[in-house]
């Protein structure tokens, strides 16, 4: 099992190495470690916010009024009181952590609404986009592998070449190319699709192609290793067809490394969504957070960042469980 002990991206030693400890105890440890990671992430985000140059209340007032001016302490006082800026840093920190524990991500400087409300309004289209893209990415990756790995030299070379090439494609450029070719020149898809079904195709493909290349790269090595295993030979000896062997036996054994990277893939998808939503002018969290960063709406940006960290941590726990389901040897 040495192959699985050190995944390149996902999580570290805890939980990945096969252990003798009972299943429940392991989950409990994972949850504790996850809470620690979230707390540390929140602390990091809080202190980055504290590094804000200049006076925070001045910045907020200038954002809200659109001016660039200085204020007297009397003018600043109500804003400072409203956002708790008049409190000592450690009190603010404690309030921030307490808020997070209750699911409160703070209040937006520019939209005067709780960050969670704003995210709730925007999250739908982004979820649709990322889930579609993830499914497409797996389809692309698995199709490439099943049909090209260990085939004639030209075919497998093309397959792995495509994976390396596509995994390196930046989202913004791929999106632009698809947009120019299919929307502007061929006029198959709308230039600004909004949230319609036709409008989903190009953004989802833009996200899926590089991710599919990456998943493919990771899975291909493992797939070829498994193809040499004795049980594959024995399945073939029983008269099973090549495609059936690949689908039923080899695939199941070779998706583990890619599953480990799901947490990473999630980050890639969300980063990608930020760019793709901007390229295709598609509403969602991505566009919203770019606007928030531009207007220096710190609570809104850090709220989304914390939410993503939270999803990352959760998905890593789920990956651990998925691991045990796919590979019973790891159940411990």
């Amino acid at each position, binding site marked *: 099992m040495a192959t699985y002990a050190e995944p390149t*991206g996902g999580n570290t030693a805890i939980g990945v190495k096969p252990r003798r400890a009972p299943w429940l105890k392991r989950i409990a440890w994972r949850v504790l470690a996850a809470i620690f990671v979230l707390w540390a992430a929140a602390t990091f985000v809080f202190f980055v916010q504290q590094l804000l*140059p200049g006076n925070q209340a001045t910045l907020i007032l200038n954002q809200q009024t659109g001016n660039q001016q200085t204020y007297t302490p009397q003018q600043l006082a109500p804003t400072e009181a409203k956002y708790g800026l008049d409190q000592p840093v450690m009190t603010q920190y404690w309030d921030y952590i307490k808020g997070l524990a209750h699911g409160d991500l703070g209040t937006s400087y520019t939209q005067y609404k709780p960050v969670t409300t704003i995210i709730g309004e925007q999250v739908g289209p982004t979820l649709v986009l990322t889930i579609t893209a993830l499914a497409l990415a797996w389809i692309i990756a698995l199709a490439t592998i099943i049909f090209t790995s260990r085939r004639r030299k030209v075919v497998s070379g093309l397959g792995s070449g495509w994976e390396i090439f596509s995994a390196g494609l930046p989202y913004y*450029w791929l999106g632009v190319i698809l947009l120019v070719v299919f929307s502007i020149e061929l006029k198959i898809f709308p230039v600004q699709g909004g949230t319609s079904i036709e409008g989903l195709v190009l953004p989802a493909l833009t996200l899926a192609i590089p991710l599919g290349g990456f998943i493919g790269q990771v899975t291909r090595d493992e797939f070829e290793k498994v193809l040499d295993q004795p049980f594959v030979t024995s399945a073939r000896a029983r008269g099973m067809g090549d495609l059936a062997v690949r689908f039923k036996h080899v695939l199941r054994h070779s998706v583990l490394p890619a599953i480990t990277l799901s947490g990473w893939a999630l980050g890639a998808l969300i*980063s990608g969504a930020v*760019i793709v939503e901007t390229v295709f002018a598609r509403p969602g969290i991505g566009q919203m957070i770019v606007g928030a960063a531009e207007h220096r709406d710190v609570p809104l940006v850090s709220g989304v960042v914390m939410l993503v960290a939270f999803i990352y941590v959760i998905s890593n726990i789920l990956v651990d469980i998925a691991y045990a389901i796919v590979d019973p040897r790891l159940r411990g």
Partner: protein
Amino acid sequence: MSATPHTAGAPGGAPAPASARQRLAIPEWVRGIRPGVALAGLVVAFFVVAMIVPSLLTGHDPYAVNLEETLQSPSWAHIMGTDQSGRDLYARIVYGARESLLIGLGATALGMGLAIVFGTLAGLGNKWVDGAINRGVEVMFAFPILLLALLFVAVFGPSVTTEIVAVGLGTAPGYARMVRGQVLSVRDSGYVEAARALGHPYGSIVRRHIFPNAMRPLVVVMTLGVGQSIVWASGIAFLGLGVPPPSPEWGALLNAGRNYITQAWWLEVMPGVAIVLFSLSLTTLGRHLQQRLEGGVRR
């Protein structure tokens, strides 16, 4: 080369042309280079020249506004077309190489620097130091690079420094994990054990054996990393949160071209070609180096 009956009869006749060919032939390390790698080398060399002396590669002025030639599609006069102010896009990409490459190098250097410090400490430290650094790395992994960059932009405002710091910090945890692994494997290797058995002081073992040997493979990682950093940094600039407009930095070009996408596709496609070509070439070179180094170890 098949031997003809004439030369086959003469003893020593056949080896003579072979040795002559060997003298003329290119050295073996050059012959081992595949055409793809050679092409990648040329692309990287082109952009390095563009970074140092851009005027060698183009006669156009990247800032010269010419309102009679706005938004021209690629032609012989302007091989990559012109932008909304009539500036030659090819010249802008060539001149933008400096800023783009420097941002990529800066971010990689920052990420790698942090990674070397923390990775080495984790690899050599006791289990508490190692554990603390590992947890820290795990925490940083929870932030996707682009979101970290957006947070930094929100707090510090958009600038080149913000861009470099964000990309550097974002890539550091991955490198740190790699450095730690390297240090660990070197620390447990036979020659370090031998040096210890010979009674060399710990400090000198670290300085003379562990550190240099653990760092060598990182050269390759850095080659790959610069390409990746440029891709990330131009992504930030593409969103309009990096280098401000008049600059021909590649991401800034992409951002500037966004408004003209329905009229002038080349403004978006060409800077992207530069970014993709450059990072793909660096990846190809990096992989080639990696194979070389690993092959060397095996031999």
